[in-house]
């Protein structure tokens, strides 16, 4: 009786493993789908010819060279870098002040402030962008200023969330202790809190930069001659033409973002900033 039971049990346990194996297989396929197109871009960027074929018929750096020699694309790349750094810096300062006020200076309603800070994420970016364009009809602002304002808006929710997460990791009593010992709130903030949350603030800054750099929707209406961001430059080029030079540019962008992503992951963890 015991003897004949064994193979049945073995089969049963194999059957129990099957869903797990199927699940892993499915997930592997989804990752292939998720990463495939990005891998294809990087592969195509090394194409030696004009062909967009996959796999590319050889290997060369000519499209990276073409990118460096195209004034339009390098200009847009540089503009996006400057815009991203400015927007991220302003958003980080605003995010820090808001998060600190919500977590440390308010007895109640701190949570409400944090929720309200998420507002730009809850309104379609397309709508924000058109509204700012419309506003320009009544108040004249330089093109760069309106674009910058739009980018600061869409970055601020992430900086508020990022700084809040790292403030929560710092014991509020440290500040109380510093103030008991005679430091003013501002001194305690600058000399106790800021050094402790520096990694979180830096990650918030980097993430905000990535958000600004990848944005299409705000720039769609607010980019103008001389203030064209890289995604908009790519968008208008790709509508008419197809060339591996775009693959080279986007590969540079992908590598930059992967590096920044790894830095943020090391500093505080990506998910804590994204809050999704």
């Amino acid at each position, binding site marked *: 009786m015991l003897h004949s039971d064994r193979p049945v049990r073995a089969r049963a346990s194999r059957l129990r493993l099957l869903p797990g194996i199927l699940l892993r297989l499915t997930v592997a396929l989804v990752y292939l789908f998720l990463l495939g197109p990005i891998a294809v871009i990087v592969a195509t960027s090394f194409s030696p010819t004009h062909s*967009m074929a996959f796999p590319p018929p050889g290997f060369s750096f000519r499209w990276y060279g073409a990118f460096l020699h195209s004034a339009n694309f390098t200009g847009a790349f540089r503009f996006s870098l400057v815009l991203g750094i400015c927007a991220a810096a302003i958003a980080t300062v605003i995010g820090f*002040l808001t998060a600190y006020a919500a977590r440390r200076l308010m007895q109640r309603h701190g949570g409400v402030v944090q929720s309200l800070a998420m507002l730009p994420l809850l309104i379609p970016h397309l709508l924000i962008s058109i509204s700012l364009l*419309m506003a320009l*009809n009544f108040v004249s602002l330089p093109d760069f200023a309106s674009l910058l304002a739009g980018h*600061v808006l869409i970055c601020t929710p992430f900086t508020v969330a990022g700084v809040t997460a790292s403030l929560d990791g710092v014991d509020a009593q440290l500040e109380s202790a510093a103030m008991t010992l005679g430091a003013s709130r501002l001194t305690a903030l600058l000399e106790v809190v800021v050094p402790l949350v520096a990694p979180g603030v830096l990650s918030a800054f980097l993430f905000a930069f990535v958000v600004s750099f*990848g944005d299409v929707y705000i720039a769609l209406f607010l980019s103008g001659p001389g203030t064209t961001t890289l*995604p908009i430059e790519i968008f208008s080029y790709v509508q008419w033409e197809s060339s591996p030079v775009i693959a080279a540019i*986007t590969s540079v962008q992908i590598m930059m*973002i992967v590096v920044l992503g790894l830095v943020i992951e090391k500093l505080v963890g990506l998910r804590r900033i994204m809050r999704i």
Partner: protein
Amino acid sequence: MQSSRKLLIVFMAPATLLYIVFLLAPVSFFLAIGLMQYDAIDLYQPVLTLANFGRMVLDPFYRDIILLTLKIAALTTVLTLLVGYPVAYLLARGRSAWRGVLMFLVVAPLMTGEIVRTYGWIVTLGSEGLVNRALLVLSIIHTPLQLLNTQIAVVVALVHILLPFMIFPLISALASQDPDLVRAADTLGAGRLRAFVEVTLPLSRTGIMIGSLLVFTLAAGAVVTPALLGGKDVQMLGQMIYDLVLHTLNWPLASACASILLALQLCFVFLQVRANRRAVRRR
């Protein structure tokens, strides 16, 4: 205490100003224009009317665009749910050492932005792209398929772009479930499939709703992806708003269309708030 209050005002001022001047004021103004009469010269006439909303629903040209948008957004939502659920399940329940890496690989593509990933699909779906080459090599087809400039291309790319927005709410919903519940169902003889269908799935309902609404809204508002992958046949709401603002210059109608997007997004906010409140109560 007085100084702390002053500090609070100073600290809150920049964000408050930013949100009022650059967000609330312009957006409310733009939405209000949706209730005004269209005027070819002054953009709008300060006369209250519901004509723009009426035109959007009754004019077959705009109605078809809205119906196509709803169809593509719905298809994208269902597919992201089907594709995202297994990933979320494994990430929420698995104890693999690779979990951190797998999580990173979901987030990293999100950071590259819509234009990069749309471009990835242009290259992948082209007549000499990976998909057509693979099908030719496997002799499944003999002439390259026309994949670009189709609704399929738009849906596939949108699923790819929006997948992380589905996966994360699902992970939150699945991770907050007590794994003992499934074990209990198992002990009681439910079997794995039944335990999944009757315990895990209903309990992740909130995550499914939040993820779906988020994906649906973002898909319905997409501009770049349908413009680059859909060709002439695919005209979606986002593109229509873009054309109305920049080419047709019918701002009142554009505003009426944009308020549909906003309404969809507000549904999402409402669900999210309700889910959060419930989660707090459970704790």
